[in-house]
């Protein structure tokens, strides 16, 4: 009996062995032929995703629906929803330091006391003077704040009650040449809405991007829902897509939320862009992840990305001839008395936006963006160009007795040693404590679970630390930006600063050319 069972097991194993080997040979041959086996399943075995993954909802084309398994939704207290209210903000600023890839000293076109229109150039980069950076609002320039090496870091404008826009001629996208479009966007101040990857820098006008990507949703902690932004903007988004299609040799891709509800009418109506749906936890909404699953960035080439807000601003410019920087900002996080959505313009004063809304108890940290990849802001600072969220959390500068072993207050964690995994919908009141000290890499496989990409983050980090350029490129550094790796940094047991390591690596790659 036992012998028979053994023979049976041995037989099955042998059969499975040969099947698996021949299956692999097919895949190898397919790769040699240049077929991407990650997209087309040539195996005799169905992929697990097909068997157990969520089926594509009816609004999504099956071949353009992506189920992403890795990732984690960090649930925090203080989400903002409802109808956006008009913010009472009088001071706005344009910050040259927001734009990565320009020379450190911006050339000013205005001085204190000048009156400017919304959309009027205020400074330019001496390396590419044709690209203009424009005022987000109309009003009087009241301050030129200076930072390191006396370079201007803030151009502060006291806004007019009635906003006046600089009116541009309307360009016909269908008849204009590609160079005309580029010149138009540069002169009107919309060029810096285009972001180039790899390296996350202002798009280089001499480069023709392989593709242009726009993610229409965010999965970041407490990130606002974009539907308020999209209401009634079909024409603008359509115009943006038409314009962008002229600038790329490939296509314009839209990344849509595939997690459940059917898409916003604006998104269903627009045409001319290839729409892909993404279902998964954070970072499924990150444009870098979406690029990886639609048309990955090749070495020695570049793609451009825009935020949804940026695309709408660009579309409005092409439609109406004005640079409209109005945006909806989400005030989120546990330290706000009333988290809410507010209507304002780019560069709004933080002090005025958050006035009377911050809890007195504890020290508050204000972050522009989300808690994973946002930047700390002082109260007298101004919102950066591409941001649409301010998060407030409590500082965690306190010792905790046996805090590592017996945590009293619940804290977010991906570890199953914490009771949190039993309550997947609990909203945490997280603070900024590091919950441990920095150590060498010990735990493996952790980052891979937080990044739905075919990339080995830990090995990439080690390659960066070793300064091995070739290996960094091979392991896919060009496909990554800080926001993509932020969740892995959150989960890191060794408390490694992954985002800053990655930025060092990207800078290294950029210097290499």
């Amino acid at each position, binding site marked *: 009996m036992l012998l028979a069972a*053994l023979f049976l097991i041995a037989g099955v194993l042998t059969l499975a062995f040969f099947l698996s080997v021949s299956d692999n040979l097919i895949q190898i041959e397919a*790769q040699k032929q240049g077929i*991407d086996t990650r997209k087309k399943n040539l195996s005799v075995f169905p992929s697990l995703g097909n068997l157990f993954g969520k089926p594509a909802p009816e609004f999504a084309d099956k071949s353009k629906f992506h189920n992403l398994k890795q990732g984690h939704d*960090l649930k*925090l207290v203080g989400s903002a929803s409802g109808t956006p209210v008009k913010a009472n903000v009088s001071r706005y600023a344009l910050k040259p330091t927001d734009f990565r890839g320009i020379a450190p000293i911006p050339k000013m076109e205005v001085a204190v006391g000048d009156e400017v229109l919304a959309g009027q150039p205020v400074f330019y980069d001496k390396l590419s003077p044709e690209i203009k950076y424009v005022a987000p609002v109309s009003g009087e320039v009241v301050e030129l704040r200076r930072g390191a090496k006396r370079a201007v870091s803030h151009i502060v404008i006291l806004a007019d009650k009635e906003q006046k826009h600089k009116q541009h001629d309307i360009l016909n996208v269908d008849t204009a040449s590609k160079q005309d479009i580029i010149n138009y966007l540069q002169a009107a101040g919309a060029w810096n809405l285009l972001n180039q990857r790899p390296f996350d820098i202002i798009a280089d006008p001499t480069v023709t991007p*392989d593709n242009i990507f726009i993610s229409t949703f965010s999965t970041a902690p407490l990130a606002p829902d974009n539907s308020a932004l999209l209401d009634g903007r079909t024409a603008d988004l359509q115009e943006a897509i038409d314009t962008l299609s002229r600038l790329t040799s*490939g*296509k314009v891709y839209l990344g849509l939320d595939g997690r459940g509800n059917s898409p916003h009418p604006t998104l269903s109506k627009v045409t001319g862009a*290839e729409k892909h749906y993404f279902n998964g936890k954070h970072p499924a909404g990150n444009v870098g992840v979406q690029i990886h699953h639609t048309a*990955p960035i*090749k070495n*020695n*080439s570049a793609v451009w990305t825009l935020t949804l807000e940026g695309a709408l601003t660009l579309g409005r410019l092409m439609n109406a001839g004005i640079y409209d920087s109005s945006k909806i900002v989400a005030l989120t996080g546990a330290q706000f008395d009333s988290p809410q959505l507010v209507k304002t313009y780019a560069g709004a004063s933080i002090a005025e936006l958050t006035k009377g809304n911050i809890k007195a108890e504890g020290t508050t940290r204000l*972050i522009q963006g989300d808690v*994973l*990849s946002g930047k*700390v802001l002082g109260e007298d600072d101004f919102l950066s160009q591409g941001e649409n969220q301010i998060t407030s959390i409590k*500082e*965690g*500068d306190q*010792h*905790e*007795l*046996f805090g*590592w*072993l017996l*945590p009293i207050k619940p*804290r977010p964690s991906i*570890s*199953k*040693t914490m009771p949190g995994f039993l309550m997947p919908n609990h909203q945490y009141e997280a603070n*900024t*404590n*590091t*919950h*441990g*000290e920095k*150590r*060498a*890499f*010990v*735990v*493996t*496989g952790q980052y*891979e679970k937080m990044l739905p990409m*075919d*990339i*080995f983050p*830990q*090995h990439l980090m080690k390659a960066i630390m070793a300064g091995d350029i070739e290996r960094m490129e*091979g*392991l*896919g550094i060009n496909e990554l930006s800080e926001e993509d790796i*932020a969740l892995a940094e*959150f989960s*890191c*047991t060794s*408390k490694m600063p992954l*985002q*800053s390591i990655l930025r060092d690596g990207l800078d290294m790659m950029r210097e290499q050319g």
Partner: protein
Amino acid sequence: MGLLNFLKRIEPDKKKSPFLHTLYDGFFTFAYAPDSVTKEGVHVRDGMDLKRTMVMVVLAMQLCYVFGTYNIGHQHFVAAGQYLGFLEGFHLKLTHGLIKLLPIFLWTHIIGLGIEFWFAAKKGHAIEEGFLVSGALIPLIMPPDIPIWILCVSVAFAVILGKEAFGGTGMNIWNVALLARVFVFFAYPTTISGDEVWVSGFESMASGAVAEYGWAHGLFDKLFSWMDIDVFPAAAAVVDGYSGATPLALAYQGGWENVTATFSESQMFWGSIPGSIGETSKPLILIGAAILLATGIASWRIMLSMFIGAAIMGMMLNGWGATPFMTVPWQYQFYMGSFFFAMAFMATDPVTAASTNTGKWIYGLLIGMIGMLIRVINPAYPEGWMLAILFLNTFAPLIDHYVLEGNMKRRMKASAAAVSSHSVHSENEVTHA
């Protein structure tokens, strides 16, 4: 907050006495989670840190400690032919076990942590948690009768050459605990090999050899006689015909029948057999393994593939069947020796194992196959996991290297195709759309 203030007040000066400061820092961060806040990058950090990770592993092996301690005493009395029932003479067995285990445990930590603290002070970094696990593992994989001085030398060797020489926790190539064990194995083969070491408290395993009881036993004897319960027997001696051989030694000599003549299957399963201190009881080890798997601390890929590898090699050896040991049915191989302990606690060490998921499958599979092969073929010592794991520790970076090469080649090829023929590329894109 009184305790916190007190601890803050007694903090030694870092410049004047670096060693004391390191020591203080180690204990302070053990008591209080640090008040440091995030600076750049993420603003919120996961509640998990390395201390918690390591302590979870230590907690997972506590049952092995409890059982191992008692089993030391049990095996001692079985050799003497007294209290043959497992629970008979409970207090004597537990006392004897503790008297044997505590020095091993304490000396492991005095030497290991001492070296760790010294290096941390010397290099000016915080004490790292790696030795929490190594220090808990080492006593469990030592034979109960190991001379303390050999233990100390082996721990010092493992920590200095195996870990600190490479830069400390996270940098080592070989599993530190296994390095200590392998040092004992290779450096003191005459003292530590054979059937003599698995039962403690006797001069030798020859029949009639008397038990050696020290001052600690005497102390407890006074207590026990005052409590009016059994004391340690005055003239305990090894009974005739007792060999002290482990199941693996028996299997090597005469196959499975020879093993079952001495030990029953349930005895081997539950672990009341001679062997290294913590590795005999399979169910308790499996509970530990289950804790590690449920908390996600250990890699299930390594555990599963190691089991598959050992089973496959067991079947192949069954097919060969050249020696009595080879004919032991493969499933019974798991009843003997320290397979499960090695699988749960040794092979899964994340620092020395393969670090890619594909690599983990290969790594575990090869440990299982090679370990089983060594166990059955090696004439000097019928067990193979220690050697197999150290061997694969050495090759884990190579396995990872090929996995990463695959990833890099795939990416390079996709890029090369795009550069060489852009038109073809866009054509592909159209058909794909």
